[in-house]
């Protein structure tokens, strides 16, 4: 449950709170959850039902979290309503388990993701002052970017490497295109496409984590997102330098 939340872009405090509430709802005496971006440690103590005065039985589990690149808000929303339901009414354990499995099995609609990326990139190219042509070109490259993100996401390449690669390829393509069709504004197109790769979610979540007291996770994620942004910058910069040096003569 925590794994689903963490992998799909929830804040740390939400993950911890959800785990504790769920444990308490199923009769645990004491639930301790410790969550950072890469690991979940959960310890639950149950009282012996026949002899409640006797010592508590404790169970501890650890779960290593590897990737948190796939943001899928629908899952967070579903988990949220599931945990609300557990707290307000009684749900049998097998029912809980089956609805959890259902949520885990949900997959994002790839076409919708691409469509969203196309709209977003096109809109932001125009938003930052580009012409309609720039918007259309940015949208076209958004198709390529979402496809690449999808491919690389499946192969477990880490986010910095994939950001570097994607921004390098995009920068090269847009740069050369801009040299051929001089009406296009390369900067506006790239800004529109960069918006798809900028770790806005990670940065905001990390600052929120820090301010509600989850300093460790917040700092880990903040540094991570800076590195992602640097990788992005590095890719685009390299592409621009290559384009400039190739075209100059």
């Amino acid at each position: 449950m925590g794994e689903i939340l963490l992998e799909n872009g929830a804040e740390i405090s939400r993950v911890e709170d959800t785990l504790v509430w769920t444990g308490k709802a199923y009769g645990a005496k004491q639930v301790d959850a410790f969550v950072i971006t890469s690991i979940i440690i959960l310890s639950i103590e149950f009282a012996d039902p026949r002899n409640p005065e006797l010592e508590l039985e404790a169970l501890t589990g650890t779960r290593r979290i590897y990737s948190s690149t796939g943001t899928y808000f629908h899952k967070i929303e579903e988990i949220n309503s599931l945990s609300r339901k557990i707290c307000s009414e009684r749900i049998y354990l097998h029912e809980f388990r089956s609805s959890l499995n259902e949520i885990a099995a949900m997959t994002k609609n790839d076409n919708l993701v691409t469509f969203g990326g196309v709209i977003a990139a096109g809109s932001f190219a125009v938003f930052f002052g580009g012409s309609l042509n720039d918007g259309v070109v940015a949208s076209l490259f958004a198709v390529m970017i979402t496809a690449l993100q999808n491919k690389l996401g499946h192969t477990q390449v880490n986010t910095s490497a994939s950001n570097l690669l994607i921004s390098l390829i995009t920068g090269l393509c847009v740069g050369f295109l801009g040299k051929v069709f001089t009406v296009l504004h390369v900067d506006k197109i790239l800004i529109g496409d960069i918006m798809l790769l900028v770790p806005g979610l990670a940065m905001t979540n990390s600052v929120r984590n820090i301010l509600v007291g989850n300093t460790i996770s917040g700092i880990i994620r903040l540094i991570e997102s800076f590195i992602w942004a640097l990788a992005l910058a590095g890719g685009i910069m390299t592409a621009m330098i290559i384009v400039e040096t190739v075209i100059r003569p």
Partner: protein
Amino acid sequence: MTREIILQLLTAFTGSFGFALSFGIRTAHSLYAAFGGFLSWAVYLTVHGLSNNEFLACLAASIIAMTYSEIMARLRKSPATVFIIIAIIPLVPGGSLYYAMSNAVMGNSEMAEFYANQTLIWVLAISAGISFVTAIHELRSRK
């Protein structure tokens, strides 16, 4: 000028909607989330027009956006994160980040520094605004 403003507001809405789709938000909520993006940019433009101060405008926009998200979270029974991430997307400083990089590559270190500073100011303003509302919200719910 007016045409530019209308175009910006329109693209802020459609851009946020695009992100709502690609983050896989529940379909029924995507338009509400996108409206958050529209709202935050409208507030930004208004405050910027009045005070001519970017930090203040961005701060005000993120405060309003977070308030809107908390209200929406209550009404639509969904976590506030889902709404705020979409709502602040027009505020994410993609433009100044890009110009900071391109000026650095071209060797205009002064301009690069200017844009890098601007990027930082925006990030700071966004997170300050969000945290401000979150803190108030926490205080109220702890009582």
